[in-house]
């Protein structure tokens, strides 16, 4: 598998990274996401990283950048399912993921984006 499927639910894009991505795949995923945002006019983006066993500085950068880029396009990003050991490692390395919201799982991530949406845009 060398392409991560991006689903759309309401005005939120959802994708789950299920395999360890090498750098080129990660960059391509970033491009795919931005294109999808542009094509669909989505308002929210949920990235499920619960299957990832490693988030190093490169992957951290890609995720953080993607969220910032999506933000410029008016999309709020939630990163969900970061494992405890990865949270610890990110902390110890001093990696900061900026411009991203965090949630425990997909469901809570959707909920979170919905709440943010209500604050920003009012109820539809």
């Amino acid at each position: 598998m060398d392409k991560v499927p991006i689903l759309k639910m309401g005005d939120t894009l959802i994708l789950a990274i299920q395999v360890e991505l090498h750098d080129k795949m990660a960059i391509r995923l970033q491009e795919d996401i931005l294109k999808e945002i542009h094509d669909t006019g989505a308002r929210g983006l949920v990235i499920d990283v619960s299957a990832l066993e490693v988030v190093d500085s490169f992957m951290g950068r890609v995720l953080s950048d993607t969220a910032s880029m999506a933000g410029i396009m008016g999309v709020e990003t939630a990163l969900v399912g970061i494992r405890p050991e990865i949270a610890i490692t990110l902390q110890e390395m001093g990696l900061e993921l900026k411009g991203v919201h965090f949630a425990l799982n997909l469901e809570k991530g959707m909920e979170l984006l919905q709440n943010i949406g209500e604050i920003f845009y009012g109820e539809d």
Partner: protein
Amino acid sequence: MEKIKEVVINNSEDVILARQAAREMARETGFGLADQTRITTAVSELSRNIYLYAGTGRVIIRALSKNLKKGMEIVAEDRGPGIPDVEMALQNGYSTNRSLGQGLPGTKRLMDEFEIKSEVGVGTTVTIRKWL
């Protein structure tokens, strides 16, 4: 009964191979999940540095056993351009390539021991260790 694995790094796919080899050995050595992840992440940083800055090189992963202590040692070596200012490379925020700039200093914080030897025009060797 020393265990050694060697991974040659030529591209970004090899980074993943090095990572897998490191995690497997960390698990076999008896490290917990958090330490396994620290080690794997450190190996990911070092092997990525090889292919980003030197093009090719290798990562040697070794199980250690000293008296009662068990641990792991990873040596990442390349014959790339070398790092002109090692001190600076170890400071937060330094990076010549677009990364979060935390690669080397971050790696150092994840491990118990960290040594770096680099000579411009000759290459770079980073040795890291973690004890159980």
